[in-house]
C-alpha cells in the first residue's frame, strides 16, 4: 500500500439511499450520503433517514453505479406511449350489466 493512500484526503464515495417505509412496499429513494464502505453507508442511512421510524429496510447503492436516462431524449422515450390509450382499461366500453371486470 503506498503512503499516498494514507495521506489521501479524498472524499468518501457517494451513496444513494433507498428506504422501504413498511413491509410490503417498494424501496423508495430517500437521499444520498458519503460513506467509506457499504456497512458505514447503511449505518449512516439508518442515522440520517430513519430517525422517526421511516423505514424497515435500507438499500444503498454507490451513486456511480446508477445510470439514468437522458432528459434530452424524453420525447423519443416517452412519447410513443401517448397515443396508446387502448392500454388502459377505461378505453373499453362495456355494458353496465357486466360486473366485476
Amino acid at each position: 500500500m503506498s503512503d499516498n493512500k494514507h495521506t489521501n484526503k479524498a472524499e468518501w464515495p457517494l451513496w444513494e439511499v433507498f428506504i422501504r417505509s413498511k413491509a410490503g412496499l417498494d424501496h423508495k429513494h430517500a437521499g444520498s450520503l458519503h460513506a467509506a464502505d457499504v456497512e458505514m453507508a447503511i449505518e449512516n442511512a439508518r442515522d440520517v433517514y430513519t430517525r422517526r421510524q421511516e423505514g424497515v429496510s435500507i438499500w444503498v447503492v454507490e451513486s456511480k453505479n446508477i445510470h439514468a436516462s437522458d432528459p434530452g431524449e424524453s420525447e423519443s422515450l416517452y412519447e410513443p406511449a401517448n397515443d396508446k390509450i387502448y392500454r388502459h382499461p377505461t378505453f373499453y366500453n362495456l355494458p353496465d350489466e357486466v360486473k366485476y371486470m
Partner: protein
Amino acid sequence: MTQYSFQKHFDDKIDSDMTIEPKDWMPDDYRKTLIRQISQHAHSEIVGMLPEGNWISRAPTLRRKAVLMAKVQDEAGHGLYLYSAAETLGVSRDEMYSQLHTGKAKYSSIFNYPTLTWADMGAIGWLVDGAAIMNQVPLCRTSYGPYARAMVRVCKEESFHQRQGFEIMLTLAKGTEIQRKMAQDAFNRWWWPSLMMFGPPDAESPNTANSVRWRIKRLTNDELRQKFVDVTVEQAKVLGLDMPDKDLKWNEERGHYDFGAINWAEFYNVVKGNGPCNKQRLDARKTAWEKGQWVRDAATAYAEKRAARKAAAAQTKAA
C-alpha cells in the same frame, strides 16, 4: 438543440411550474445562485448546532436534554440533505466545507450571537426556528427538484423544533419571577436578529428579482418578515411577554403589524465577521474538521482492509 432553444425549454419549464432536475440544462447563473443559496443553507444548519450544543450538558431535566440532543441531531441531518442537494449541481462536499472554513461562504448571521441562558434555547426554537420555517415552507415548492425534496424533509422535522422552543418559553414565562425575566431577556436579545434572518430589505437585495423569476424564492424577504412579525406577536401574547419593539402597532389599513426600524448596520457588521461569536463558531467548525481527520482516515483504511480481505477470500474460494 441550440443555446436559444435550451434556454426556452428551461424558461417554459419554470413558467409551467415544473421542476428542474440535475441532468436538465440550466443557465449558469441559475446553477451558481442555487449552489450559493443551498450551501449557505447547509452551512447554517451545521453551524447552527454550535450555540445549542453549548446547552446539552446543562439542560435542566433529562427530558429537555433528550429533546435538545434530538434537535441538534436533526440539524446535522438537515445539513446533510442540503449538502447532498448542492452536490447534484456539481460542487463537491469538500469544496463546500473548504468554502465555509476559509470564510468564503457565509452562514446565517443569527448563529453568531451567544446563548447566555437556558431561556435562549427556548427563544432559538421559538423565534429562530420559527423564522427558518417561515423561510423554508415556500422552498418546498422551489424550482430545483433536489432542493425542494430536501426542504420537504427538513420542514417535516423542523416543526417539533419550534414547538419545543415555545414550550420552554411557556414554562419559563409561567414560572417564577426570575424565570419570567429570563424568558423576556432572551426574547429581547433574539427578536431583532431573528427579523434580520430574512435578509436585507427587498430594495437592497440584489438577488431577489432573479430568484423570484426562477422560482428559487417564492416570497420576498420583506413579505416573509412581515408574515413572521404578524404570527409572532400573537404567540407572544400567549406567553404573556412584551414585544421588544416600542414602535410595534397594528395597522388597520394594511392588515399587518407595523414594526420598528431594523438596525441594518449591525446586520452587515455581523455578516462581515464582526458579530459577538463569528470567530468562536468558525474556530469550533475548523477544529472539529481537523480533529476528525484521523477518524476519516481510519474509516478509509478500514474499508480498504475489509475490501482486500473480501477479495482474498473470494480468490481462495475460486482456487
